[in-house]
């Protein structure tokens, strides 16, 4: 016997936005709902669900749901399945929409109109929205709205999704609308209900309508074609892509430096303040070293993530990002991936977690898993403090000529090693998992270029920040507190001469680990520091300070550490540790993100073990070669 579930839904009408990808649906959604949106996932899948409220008059509002963009209502990808299920009233925990807004790109009715016919056959009340009507007009595409409405037997309104008040026609229509069952019934097309795809037949109907409305000429955007001549030029195109990427990186690291300093200082200041207020004891230690340090550790990456996402959103909104994927598709294809993996990997340079979340756009499951597995090999910003410390301590500040310093060059090599490692791993995975007869479809739309809407970018940024803080913050906090416990207990015995951490669980574990790490040149101090480093990479720096008993307030001790480690460690050990960090298993929050995104322990376990093996191997080779060259 199957259990029947009774769901209670809010009484307000639910209006679903349906449309082709790139029809400006999300801009229109932002315009209708403002910044007040709820972003979550659909039950059981990692497809983003966005809902917002549209206030009509006073307290009266309707709920608006932004469904994933689809080309047809025949479910093929995960996104399309969600859209179809919601429209059919089959989606778990989702009410069947009371009304569908079918959003069309007015400049591309040729393709967009077919979707209207499919939606009509679902038997839902429907309004057709001709979005981007301004662009159509500019291009000389004159659409007779009344005639189109007659042809489709549905109400048709125009909108401009990227313009303030561009949704006035829709709002006006809603405010005069009768949302009762009877009222909505009038918007239901009188057609036979049918969900089988009828592409060719539908196309005939669309061609007929276009012909009768004198819209059957192909009119394109001349600007996009002209821009593509440069941006997709065989030689200039890849070169410009490199320049853009370089500028983005430059911005991520240089613009973020100042706010990151501020956040660090603020965290310390708050920690000190609370430290003074609370009596000495475990509560103070927990709050200052666990909670505040943990929260600071998360927030400190926010500036970089914001800047990176800002650029990704601008590139995405303008239409350049799919073109970058087009340019890189062949390169990625040679290691068994597609251009679609480019965006997640790019995000991973700030932090692997948003990168892993961005893999949701990859429809091919194998490609998605491979991208998740190699994302951590992109050097995330948390590794930078560790690199800086080791480079400052061991690599002489020599000029290699042409303004290139040896230290900067080593940093570049470290980044490059990660990228090369990722490509090699993807290539190996292709040999083992790639089914050669299987076609990995690219089929990626290259939409026309648009000026990005400022408000859309702000809303996009805000949502990503919330997701990052909600999901990452919680996990990272819990882990930091857990590690604080391991590093603080049991407490050092009275009259202990060595640093307290040596007596703790973390210390015991570190001594044990030192045996494992001895062949790659790590001493027990490093081994202990690796444990708290599991929470967040940069914590290694402060942990090393703690181990070397510098002080309990370790943030500013990077400089004090340099002479100690450069004196105590061999160059071989330092190089080995650098190699370790290029490949080392990710921080625990990344592992947690992988588990959540892949829905099980299998992929995170594979990731953990392969990264460990790879890091160990890389460190071993580095250490041994360095020893042979007399760097011991």
């Amino acid at each position: 016997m199957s259990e029947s579930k009774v769901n209670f839904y809010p009484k307000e009408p639910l209006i679903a936005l349906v449309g082709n990808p790139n029809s400006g649906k999300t801009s229109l959604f932002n315009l209708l709902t403002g910044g007040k949106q709820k972003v979550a996932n659909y039950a059981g899948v990692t497809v983003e669900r966005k809902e917002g409220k549209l206030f009509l008059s006073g307290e009266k509002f309707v709920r608006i749901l932004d469904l994933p963009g689809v080309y047809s209502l025949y479910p093929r990808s995960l996104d399309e399945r969600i859209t179809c299920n919601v429209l059919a009233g089959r989606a778990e925990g989702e009410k069947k929409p009371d009304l569908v807004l079918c959003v069309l790109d007015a400049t591309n009715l040729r393709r967009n109109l077919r979707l209207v016919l499919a939606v009509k056959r679902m038997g839902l009340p429907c309004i057709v929205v001709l979005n981007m009507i301004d662009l159509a007009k500019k291009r000389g595409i004159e659409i007779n709205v009344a005639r189109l409405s007659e042809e489709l037997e549905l109400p048709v309104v125009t909108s401009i999704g990227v313009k303030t008040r561009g949704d006035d026609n829709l709002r006006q229509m809603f405010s005069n609308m009768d949302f009762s069952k009877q009222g909505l019934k009038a918007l239901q097309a009188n057609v036979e209900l049918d969900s089988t795809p009828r592409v060719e037949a539908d196309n005939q109907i669309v061609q007929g309508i276009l012909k009768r409305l004198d819209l059957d000429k192909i009119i394109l955007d001349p600007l996009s074609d002209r821009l593509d001549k440069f941006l997709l030029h065989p030689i200039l195109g890849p070169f410009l892509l490199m320049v853009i990427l370089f500028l983005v990186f430059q911005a991520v690291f240089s613009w973020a430096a100042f706010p990151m300093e501020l956040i660090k200082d603020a965290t310390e200041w708050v920690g000190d303040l609370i430290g003074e207020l609370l009596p000495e004891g475990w509560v103070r230690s927990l709050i200052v070293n666990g909670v505040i340090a943990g929260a600071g550790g998360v927030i400190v990456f926010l500036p970089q993530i914001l800047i990176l996402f800002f650029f990704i959103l601008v590139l995405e909104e303008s239409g350049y990002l799919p073109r970058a994927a087009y340019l890189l598709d062949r390169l990625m294809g040679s290691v068994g991936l597609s251009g679609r993996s480019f965006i997640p990997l790019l995000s991973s340079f700030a932090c692997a977690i948003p990168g892993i979340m961005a893999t949701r756009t990859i429809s091919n499951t194998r490609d998605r898993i491979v991208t998740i597995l190699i994302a951590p090999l992109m050097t995330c910003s948390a590794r930078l403090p560790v690199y800086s410390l080791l480079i400052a301590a061991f690599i002489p500040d020599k000029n290699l000529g042409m303004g290139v310093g040896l230290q900067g060059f080593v940093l570049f090599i470290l980044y490059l090693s990660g990228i090369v490692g990722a490509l090699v791993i993807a290539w190996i995975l292709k040999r083992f998992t790639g089914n050669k007869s299987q076609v990995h479809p690219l089929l990626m739309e290259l939409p026309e270029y648009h000026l990005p809407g400022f408000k859309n970018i702000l809303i996009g940024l805000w949502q990503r920040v919330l997701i990052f803080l909600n999901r990452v913050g919680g996990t990272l906090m819990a882990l930091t507190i857990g590690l604080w416990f391991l590093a603080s207990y049991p407490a050092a015995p009275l009259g202990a001469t060595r640093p307290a951490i040596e007596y703790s669980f973390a210390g015991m574990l570190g001594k044990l680990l030192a045996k494992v790490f001895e062949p790659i040149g790590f001493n027990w101090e490093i081994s202990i520091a690796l444990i708290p480093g599991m929470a967040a990479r940069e914590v290694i720096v402060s942990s090393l300070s703690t181990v070397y008993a510098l002080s309990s307030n370790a943030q500013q001790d990077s400089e004090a550490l340099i002479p100690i480690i450069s004196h105590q460690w061999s160059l071989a050990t330092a190089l080995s540790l650098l190699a370790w960090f290029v490949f080392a298993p990710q921080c625990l929050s990344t592992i947690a993100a992988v588990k959540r995104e892949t829905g099980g322990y299998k992929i995170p376990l594979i990731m953990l073990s392969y990264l460990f093996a790879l890091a160990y191997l890389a460190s071993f080779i580095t250490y041994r070669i360095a020893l042979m060259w007399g760097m011991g």
Partner: protein
Amino acid sequence: MNLDQATNGQILRVKRIHSLPQSTELIHQLEDIGFIPGEQVSVLRRNILGGDPMMIRVGTSTFALRKNEAALVEVEPL
């Protein structure tokens, strides 16, 4: 002629989509995005590395297709 053999800029018409048993999914996807018999199609440009992927205009839309995807579309001169 199949679309992957077309010269850049040549204006063509979709004749039909080859039905290969192992790629029915792909065929439907091609139809969804507008590769329907009679539709106007042309190759805009090809990537520098081996001419793959290709930038293709179908109707009023532009898509990036891999060579093997374009090979599924049979075309004829307009």
